[in-house]
């Protein structure tokens, strides 16, 4: 049996907690509190970490950790990323500048992304189509990065599973390349 630690990050309100809740086999551990940020219409926000567990059909288990989304918690990003095998970045396409949001996480996890597989999940693209997946691909390419970019509705288990499957595929491909 293999155990994977995956990290889910992204902007406040992008749905990190919801994504973990959608696929976790256990009741997730969440550290959300009342939100006092008047710039974001959201009742509660994660300030510590989220944790969930997903068992795969082959017996492997995935430990899912979610980060706070706000940059003021970036000290936790580095801590939570330790020993992670892959990273999911969730972006809320309804925010004013989602490409800047992506840039913030690419910068915030720059050292980890130099070695870790990553998948970008873009939410609310159907209702806010101004920024397209091509725009995200261009933004990554400008940094010399190529990651899968998927549309996602984090409330839908199948969408979140698809993100995780894509990330696991990258991880396993990387492990295969590392074999002697």
């Amino acid at each position, binding site marked *: 049996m293999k155990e994977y630690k995956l990290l889910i990050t992204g902007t406040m309100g992008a749905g990190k907690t919801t994504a973990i809740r959608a696929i976790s086999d256990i009741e997730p551990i969440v550290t959300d509190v009342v939100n006092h940020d008047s710039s974001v219409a959201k009742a509660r926000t994660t*300030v510590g970490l989220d944790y969930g567990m997903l068992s795969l059909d082959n017996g492997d288990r995935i430990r899912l950790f979610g980060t706070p989304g706000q940059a003021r918690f970036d000290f936790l990003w580095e801590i939570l990323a330790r020993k992670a095998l892959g990273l999911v970045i969730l972006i809320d396409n309804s925010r004013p500048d989602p490409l800047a949001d992506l840039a913030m996480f690419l910068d915030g996890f720059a050292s980890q992304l130099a070695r870790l597989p990553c998948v970008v999940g873009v939410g609310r693209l159907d209702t806010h189509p101004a920024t397209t997946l091509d725009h995200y691909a261009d933004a990554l390419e400008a940094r010399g990065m190529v990651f899968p970019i998927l549309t996602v509705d984090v409330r839908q288990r199948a969408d979140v599973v698809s993100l995780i499957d894509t990330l696991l595929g990258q991880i396993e491909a990387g492990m295969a390349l590392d074999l002697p």
Partner: protein
Amino acid sequence: MIDIQNMPAGLPGVAQRAAAACLAEVAGVTAVVIATVDGFDMASAFRGNQDAARIAAMASSISAISSMVAVEAGLGSFKSVTIGTDAGFAIVQAVPRQDVELVIHVIADGDAILAQAMHRVGVIAKLLAGAGA
């Protein structure tokens, strides 16, 4: 950003005076930050240069994770946690309020006496719990 206008009247002022008095009167205390539970600094007092916003965010995370530990262990509501180090200690104390939950974060060096600091933090928590309500 935190909207101070929506804070209970007088609470930020009470918090600022309490932070300043703690720093001035408790030997070894180097920083006092009083923050909302989601990590926005409402009041602070320091010796030297320290980042109130960063300390507030850390206090929020420590409080939230400690709360979850308390729940998972069936230990009731989180009240406080003390972080001992080889150069001093830090105390994170919850301030339960119905309207806006707060967290007090006190950092002290090796000259500080833990019991004295804990007592003072408890006094501040009680003061803030009833202030501006």
